[in-house]
Every structure is written in C-alpha cells, then in structure tokens.
C-alpha cells in the first residue's frame, strides 16, 4: 500500500505502541516458522515476504502488519516465516500490547478486521488462480497485485525471483513470460525488480476475462 493510501497512520501506531524500531537488510530473516511469537511487526518502510513450507504466501508492504494471525490465534509460535525483500524498517510490538489496543480502540479493531477480510479474499483468489489460470495469467495477477500508483505511472516492485516463489513457476519460465509481455507492450521491465505497467486495460482483461 503506498503512502498516500495507507490504512494506518504511522504516528498513531508509534504513539499507541512503545516498540523498538528494527532495521533489516534485503534477505534478512524477521522470524522463522516455529519460533516463539511474542511480537507483531509494523512495517514502516520496505517489504517483507511471508513463507510457509518455503512457499511464498504473500508479500506485506509498508504501513501494514506482519504476524497478526500468529498473535491472534492463541498459539505460542509463528506458523510461518518472514524475510525482508528489500531494506526495511519495522516497529516491534509486544503481542499483549497489540491485543490490548484491539480491545480498547474500536476503530483500530475495525481496521484489522478489514485487513483480514482482504487477505482472505486475496488468498482465495490466488488459490483459484492456481487451479484455473495459465502460468502467464498467474504472473500477471501477482504483478498487478503488487502495483503502486504515483502521478501518471503504475509500477510494481517485484523481482522475477519473488514472482517465481509466489506463483510456483520456475524462474526461467517467469523470465520468459516477462520478456513476452514486454515485447507485446503490456509492461516494461526495469532494473532492480521494477516493472512498469504500460497497458493496464489489456492486462485486466487478461487476468479477469
């Protein structure tokens, strides 16, 4: 979610939680599946991928939380792993403080409900996509799911490796698909995992026929 459309106000989060700020470099592990889950994390900048059984189940971006479900589900361990995709800054929040704010602040509680509903919907769509769609459609779906709009451009910041992990398609096949899409004028692949969307309507037609 980009800064202009963020759900959570960073200052509100910092004022509500007296947590430690941590910095991760690209590739650093935030937590591993099976570790004790004493904390929820708020991403101030950067992005974190979430994995289970080495399968990427999602990418969480700035102004979102990581670790909510493990915290809420009354179990003592993280049920998935997480790793920084890029240099990231996070606020480390004690689990008990997070739960207390849910009980004290109706608006915050409502926002968390909205996030969970969105994530369930997205996961269902991805599952459906896996069953129904071609590899090309799945790649397009994940690219479009990670776009950021600014001024007159639409771009996705996601590497071929991430796309491979999200879709279960080999990196080589992903690279070929991106090359084909670039030749067809649907997108433009730039450096460092940046993909510029050139023809949004055509992409939308393809992923939602």
């Amino acid at each position, binding site marked *: 979610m980009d800064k202009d459309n963020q759900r959570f106000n960073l200052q509100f989060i910092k004022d509500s939680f007296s947590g430690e700020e941590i910095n991760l470099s690209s590739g650093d592990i935030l937590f591993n599946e099976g570790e004790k889950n004493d904390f929820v994390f708020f991403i101030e900048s950067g992005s974190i991928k979430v994995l*289970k*059984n080495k*399968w990427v*189940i*999602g990418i969480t971006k700035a102004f979102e939380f990581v670790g*909510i*479900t493990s915290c*809420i*589900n*009354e179990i003592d361990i993280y*049920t*998935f792993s997480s790793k920084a995709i890029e240099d990231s800054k996070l606020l480390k929040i004690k689990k008990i403080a997070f*739960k207390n704010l*849910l*009980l*004290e602040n*109706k608006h915050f*509680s*409502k926002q*968390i*409900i*909205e996030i*969970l*509903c*969105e*994530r*369930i*919907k997205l*996961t*269902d769509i*991805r*599952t*459906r996509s*896996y*069953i*129904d769609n071609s590899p090309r459609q799945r790649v397009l779906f994940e690219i479009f799911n990670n776009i950021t709009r600014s001024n007159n451009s639409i771009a996705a910041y996601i590497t071929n490796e991430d796309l491979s992990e999200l879709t*279960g398609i080999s990196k080589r096949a992903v690279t070929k698909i991106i090359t084909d899409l670039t030749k067809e004028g649907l997108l433009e692949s730039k450096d460092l995992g940046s993909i510029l969307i050139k023809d949004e309507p055509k992409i939308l037609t393809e992923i939602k026929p």
Partner: protein
Amino acid sequence: MKKNTIEIPSCSNCGNSKEFFCNLSESEKQLLSDKKGDNFYKKGQVIFYEGNHANGLYCLYDGKVKLTKLGKDGKEQIVRFSKNGDILGYRSLLSDEPYHATATALEDSHICMISKEKFLQVVEQNTKLSLQVIQLLSKDLKGAEQHLIDVAQKTVKERIAESLILLKNTFGYLADGKTININMTRSEIADMAGTSTESTIRTLATLSDENMIALDGKNIIISDLPNLIRCSNTYD
C-alpha cells in the same frame, strides 16, 4: 427426513451458542434474537448465492452446509463446510461486500438469520466480540493459506487424503465409529481437493486398495486413520 417445523430457541437459550456468542450480554443476545428469522432448507436448497447482496448473518441451528465458489468453466470449488453452531456470511457483512460464496444445504437444515444491521451493531459495541471476530477471521486466513499451499504443493493423492480427513474432522463418524458422517459425491470431493472427478475416483480406489479406506456407495469408511494422515502429509 427432518420435520420442517421445529421451535428454534432464542439466542439466549440456544445450546449451539458456542464460543462466538458467549461474550454477549443478555441484552445483546436479545437484540439479535428480536425479529430473528428462522428457515427450513431442504437438502440441496441454496441459502444464499455468491455475488448476492449480503443482508444477514446465518447461524446453522441444525444441519450441514457447504460453501462453494464458481471457477472458470462453471466448475465449483468447495471452500468450507459448516455444521451446527457455525455462522455463515460474516465476512461479507464485515467487509461490506456481496456474499463470497454460495451456501447450499447438504442435508435438511434449520438456519437462523440475523439482520446485518443488528450483527454489525453488536460487533461495534462489544469489543470482546470484535476480538472473537478477529480470531475467527485469523483462523479462516490460516485455513485459506494452508489450502493455497496444499493446492500448489501437494500431490492429488495427498489432497484427496487430506479432504477425507477434513470431512471426518468436520462431521465425525456415524454410530459405527468409522463411516464418515456425510455423503459427498465424487465430484464434490474433487472440488474440495481442486482436482478432476476422474482423478478422484482413481485415487479413492487406490486408497481403498491400500486399505486406508473402504468404499460403500457414497459412504466412505476410514479403515486406517494413522496411515491416511501420513498419506495426506499434514503435520499441524
């Protein structure tokens, strides 16, 4: 066949209340109960359709329901089952979206309907209930993520085995202690596992040959649960 006219108690006296409503005050339960609708659905009848405007929360008083989504080529995907005490439609109400799935009675069922306005009013007022809603959604998200991983990573045999275990965990056994207490068509099992009916029929035959299950028409008997669990590759 069940009688279609039974007296469904108020929310305060419902033995199915379970965890979800246990944090409500009497006045809140009364608020939900006032003008609560209750309907009888015959086996195969649809309670609500995917894409329809979400107007209420459904609470399954007695019976069994499947929730399905329509994929491409009209293929149905079973996303969840519901049994006595389960609530349906809450995610659509909370996210202010149309119903995300179609709910169909798997057997004759009695279902209560609470209006959207009253449900949301109580959730807003009662922060403990709000937390329970979040817990329910978290559990749903965990289930959805696991399903995604299963579809992506597991073999057809593992997915079919897991589907049978899910059915057994959701509906239990009949009085014989080994027959799963629900009749599902091969097509419905295929929908659950995200595979074709043909593959499902072959795989069930294989599981039967390997003495993990026995097939008696639509009835599925679990002969060797530990091995079936191992076969499903589920470790949770």
